């Protein structure tokens, strides 16, 4: 039971990682709750194999992304990523930036499952080497994909913002 307590303490501390992954991949509270539960269970099942070589947060990201990608619900489309940022009250500027962010989140929401994983890890400030290790691809491949995604997001978010 010592293990369970240690796991719950770590999960409680890092649960925002799981929430982020759930928000990225699921668009209803029910689905997010189901995915949260699945990730928690999966992490608990794998916890015995967590050797501590990586940070718990990095390990949890890997488990969470693996679970989200393979947690498949028939007929489900990808989620529209929710706006989770509010800016300080500077009236007009705030409004414009929030709208642009909304447009960017909408564009992210339209990405494929794999591209979403890349974007999420990139926003978490992981470098290409770390992202590559988590996804099991080369850093070079990550760089190519990220360039493509950035261009796509720029175009899409501009369209959403203007239209």
């Amino acid at each position, binding site marked *: 039971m010592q293990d369970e307590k240690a796991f719950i303490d770590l999960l409680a501390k890092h649960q925002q990682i799981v929430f982020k992954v759930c928000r990225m991949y699921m668009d209803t509270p029910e689905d997010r709750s189901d995915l949260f539960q699945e990730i928690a269970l999966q992490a*608990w099942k794998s916890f015995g194999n967590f050797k501590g070589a990586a940070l718990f947060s990095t390990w949890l990201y890997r488990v969470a992304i693996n679970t989200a990608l393979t947690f498949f619900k028939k007929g489900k489309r990808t989620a529209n990523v929710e706006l989770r940022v509010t800016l300080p009250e500077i009236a007009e500027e705030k409004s414009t930036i929030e709208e642009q962010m909304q447009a960017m989140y909408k564009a992210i929401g339209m990405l494929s499952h794999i591209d979403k994983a890349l974007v999420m890890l990139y926003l978490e400030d992981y470098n290409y080497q770390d992202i590559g290790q988590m996804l099991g691809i080369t850093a070079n491949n990550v760089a190519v994909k990220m360039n493509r995604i950035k261009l796509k997001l720029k175009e899409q978010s501009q369209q959403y913002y203007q239209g």
Partner: protein
Amino acid sequence: MELDDLKNLLKDQSALAPSDPPASPAALQQLLKSNPQSPINKMVRNLWLELYITIGFLVPFSFVVYSIPIWSIRVYFAVLLGLCWVLILPLFLFARKISKLSSTALPVKKNLETIYALMKLYVKRYMQFVMGLLPIFFALAFSLGFKEGQSGKHIPAFDKLLTPFTSLWQIVTVTVLYIVFVAMGTYYFTKWYLKKLYGQYLEHLAAMMAELEE
């Protein structure tokens, strides 16, 4: 706005809105008691269920083998019983292998490839097993029936089934139609069943793997 602009905004912790309300340790502990719902975990549950059902069949099949006086039925069920015994070990090993996989945090690509390969193998073996049983049991049923007929013993229920067919060609036609109908029915039903259970999921996994390959 570009992705890097968003990244910079998110880096500014003061700009973050209150995030999801944290779950309490007690709520997290409760979560760990629930059943996992992912397809791979459902497959593991199906495998264990199949294993228990196979073990469950051992008792009634053994009863038939040792207690029914009709020789052909005893042989038929003895073969079924043997198959159940043969199936137990591979089912157990396969279920254990997948259980082990689901408790390992592999890199995403490797994880997808492993799940895909295991599911594909499961679907293939399932289909092969079901279709492989057909000729075995047709051959067994007809040879045993023929032997019983030669020995002069008759099973009234089976005789009644064939009563409307008087000539040999009628019996042969009905037998052939029966084989074709059962074989085609089993083939298409199994294919449909496996596709319904795993088809869409396998396509989903394959698409993600292809994307990572690019």
